Structures are given as C-alpha cells and as structure tokens.
C-alpha cells in the first residue's frame, strides 16, 4: 500500500525536476539559437514555466509539512508573469533601436530597420546614431 505522503513526494519531485528541466532548456536556448531576437524567446517563456513548476512544488511541500496552506509562492508567480513580458519587450525594443542584425532566414522586414526612429515629442528623427 502506497501512502499518501509517498505519492505527494513523487508529485513534488516531478514538479521540481520539470521546473529544473525547463530552466535548463531556456538557458540552452540562449546558447543555441542564432540571433538576438530568437534568443529572447528562451528566457521569456521557458524560464517562466521553470520557475512556475518549482514554485508549485514548493507550495505543495510547505503546505504538507507545515499543515497550513502556503500561498506566498502564488505572489512570486504573479509578479513574474507580470514582469517577464515587459523586460522581454524592452530588450526587443532596444535591439530594434540599435538595428541589431537578424538571421538571414527571417521573413518580413519591418520598416523600423530602414527609417530613423522618430522622436515622439517633436516628430523629427532622433539623433541616436546606429552603431
């Protein structure tokens, strides 16, 4: 007869291993993908789920051992989900502004690469030079 705690231990282990794997794959993506824009996809997505899985594991573990519902981890998840897209967006925006080269097989050529970025206040091209 397998006890309740054994089953929960397996569940916690599953979440921890899954979280670790996703975080690892996300970091691997940083090294393996070809250009800056593609590399952005790794950390902005896989690490979110990686941290999320670890936090679910932590939630179950501390709820069981302390015999109280442990919900602090939910806050971490929420703040992470709110901030991760913003940082990814800002990174992408900076890359566009600097006109970083993209991989040859990228379809589509946004006009941001051609034109000078306009200053939102005056409507004149900003003086930031391309590197």
């Amino acid at each position, binding site marked *: 007869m397998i006890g309740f705690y054994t089953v929960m231990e397996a569940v916690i282990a599953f979440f921890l291993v899954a979280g670790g794997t996703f975080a690892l*794959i996300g970091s691997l993506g940083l090294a393996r993908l070809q250009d800056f824009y593609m590399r952005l996809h790794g950390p902005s997505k*896989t690490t979110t789920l990686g941290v999320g899985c670890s936090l679910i594991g932590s939630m179950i573990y501390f709820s069981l051992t302390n015999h109280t519902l442990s919900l602090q981890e939910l806050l971490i998840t929420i703040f992470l989900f709110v901030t991760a897209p913003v940082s990814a*967006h800002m990174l992408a925006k900076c890359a566009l502004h600097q006109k970083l080269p993209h991989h040859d097989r*990228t379809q*589509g050529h946004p006009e941001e690469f051609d034109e000078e970025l306009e200053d939102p206040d005056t409507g004149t091209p900003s003086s930031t030079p391309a590197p």
Partner: protein
Amino acid sequence: MIRSRSWLPIPLLSVLLLIVWLLLQQSVAFGQWLLGGFLAIVIPIVIHPFWEPQPYLKRPFLLLRYYLRVLVDIVIANLQVSRIIVDPRRRPNPAFVVYPLELKEYFTITILASTITLTPGTVSAHLRLDGKSLLIHTLDVDDPDALIKEIHERYERPLKEIFEC
C-alpha cells in the same frame, strides 16, 4: 461592482492590496486584517492623483476564462519552444510580423502585448508610435497571416469584449 467613493478611490486596487498583504503575512489574524485594511485604504488615496483612469471591467467572468486560456497556452508555448531548442535537426523559421491592432486603450494593448510574449513562439517587439500596430517577432512560423488571425481570434477579441465593447 463596488462604487468608488472619496475615501475609496480605486476599489479594485484596495482589494488587491489587502489580498497581497494577507498572502505576504501568511496569516488571517485580526490584526493583519486591520493593518492590511488600513494600508489598502491609505495607499490608493495617496497615489490617486497619479493614477491614470483604467478601462472599466465590463465582464469579469470572461476575464477569468481568459486567464485560464492564457495559462494553458503558456504551458503549450513552453513545450513548443523547448522542442525547437532541443531538437538539433529542426531549423526554425523566424519572422517579423506586423500585427494590426483593433484595441485602443493603452491598458488593454499592454495586456495583449504581454499575452503575446508569454504565449506560443512570439515576442512582442515594438508598439508603433501611432498605437495602431504591434511588431511581433516569432520563433517558428510558416504562415504569418494565419498567426495574425489566431492572435485576433484567441486573444484580442476576448479582450475587446471584456474591456471595450
């Protein structure tokens, strides 16, 4: 919905602050309710002058469904991106896609852009200055038009129903 009053200018923010406070303290003792309630009333009053008016939440239950859908999509997105990264033979077809926006409020556009970044193979890269189109970078796409249609059906329309209709 709770009406906003002079001593409770932003009711939703107050509720959120109270919940966050109780979660952080990990206790529902009377003192924590008191302290959390005090903060939940004082903080909104202090920051109210700097607060931009947010769009009115028309259908809260649709928002709940939207959250669940995004949550499921985040898991799917992760599996897809992981497969692309791990499989050495697979050569991704990245693309820049210009997505025409129908939403008008900046707040809803922000939610849409964040959703796009968290979900399958896309990172929102740049909001054009006119606020009418969003530049998206996708990791692996065959048909950009199908992607635009999918985002429209799956995310933008529900958001429009929730906030702007």
